[in-house]
């Protein structure tokens, strides 16, 4: 009983964080937001927090990140506080991951960056149910007895659909980021251990969005017949697709050329791979 409560709670929180990533990642790769955070004065930071809380309160009236939403006043207030906290934690984690906040960053700059980046993240948390609701038309769950060749065909189709959805989602989010200056700036500050951390986080976030946060199409996904059937296989495969697309987009926008050294390709691709994977995950739950 207690365990069940915690499981639901954890799922709700992960759904919230996933929504936050979908909404917040594009602004995380916007250096102007880091700068605004760098020179904002503390009184303004407090008002930003207050205004964000108000927005979250309004959003939580109709939306939210919990599966079972009671519309009581206290529930809305507590959900708003939680959305803000989830936003702050996710924003801080990604800022640290991208080396925008390090041990050398002064406290006021750190706070400013985290607070400004937390705004889109927490709004995403409050919109999580809508953002991560899947197609919703999962009623045609017939699963008839298929002959061998039909089954093979269906499996092929499901795999193709997953690949397509990942690619569309990845393009949708990463296309906005690929031509900008943020990727080279982030790439210049990063190092091998941090890149590994970025890879692991990309996989974790993608897994969280598709297999924990999504509640409408989850059952359907687990029954699906695609080659991607295994959650971990699907996560890794879609990460590979996202990376390939990230590399292609960087080349397409002349951010990388074929004569550039391979470590540069690697760094840039991994850094753009994070938003691409988040987009790819969103794409897969939309089908």
């Amino acid at each position, binding site marked *: 009983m*207690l365990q069940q*409560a*915690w499981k*639901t*709670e954890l799922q709700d*929180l992960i759904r919230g964080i996933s929504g936050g990533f979908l909404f917040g990642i594009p602004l995380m790769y916007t250096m102007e937001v880091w*700068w605004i955070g*760098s*020179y904002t*004065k*503390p*009184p303004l*930071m*407090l008002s930003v*927090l207050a205004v964000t809380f108000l927005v979250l309160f309004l959003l939580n009236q109709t939306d939210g990140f919990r599966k079972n939403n*009671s*519309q*009581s*006043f*206290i*529930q809305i207030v*507590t959900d708003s*506080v*939680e959305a*803000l*906290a*989830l936003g*702050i*934690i996710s924003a801080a984690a990604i800022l640290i991951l991208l080396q925008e906040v390090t041990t*050398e*960053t*002064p*406290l*006021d*700059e750190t*706070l400013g960056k*985290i*607070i400004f980046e937390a705004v889109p993240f927490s709004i995403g948390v409050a919109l999580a149910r809508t953002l991560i609701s899947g197609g919703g038309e999962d009623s045609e769950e017939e699963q008839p007895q298929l002959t061998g060749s039909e089954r093979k065909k269906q499996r092929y189709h499901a795999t193709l659909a997953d690949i397509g959805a990942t690619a569309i989602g990845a393009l949708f989010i990463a296309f906005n980021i690929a031509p900008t200056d943020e990727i080279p700036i982030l790439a210049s500050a990063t190092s091998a251990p941090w890149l590994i951390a970025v890879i692991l986080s990309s996989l974790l976030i993608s897994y969280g969005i598709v297999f924990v946060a999504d509640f409408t199409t989850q059952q359907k996904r687990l029954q699906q017949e695609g080659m991607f059937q295994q959650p971990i296989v699907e996560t890794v495969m879609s990460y590979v697709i996202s990376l390939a697309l990230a590399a292609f987009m960087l080349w397409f926008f002349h951010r990388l050329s074929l004569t550039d050294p391979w470590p540069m390709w690697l760094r840039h691709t991994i850094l753009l791979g994070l938003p691409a994977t988040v987009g790819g995950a969103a794409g897969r739950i939309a089908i």
Partner: protein
Amino acid sequence: MNKSKSFGSRAKNAIPAEWITFAIALLIVLSMIGLVLYTGLTQDKQPPVLEVVRSETKETKGQFYVPFKVTNTGGETAESVQVIGELRLNGEIEESGEQQIDFLSGGESQEGAFIFTRNPQNGEIVLRVASYKLP
């Protein structure tokens, strides 16, 4: 009436999980507000004070690298900090370089290097912060 009832029945089922996460969330938000207040109260209203320090010159492939570190020891953030490095031989400026640093908030420091083609050992290197603007 209705509100408190629905809330009560919810809480009965899920007191631990929901309220523990809420407590943690509240703690995070409050500590964020606390930290902002702390920086607001302790922050210097002093204008930026910029200092540039150079370290050991290194010679690589016939060029002389003079690393520097610029620190803002004042309170407020300085924007577009312009660092100028000059190499003087016999009192005359032979080579000069310029570097701009986007943001330098109170207590922050940034590093970089000037590159000269002539040996600074024979002359004098002058590093200075020429200008900045307030954001």
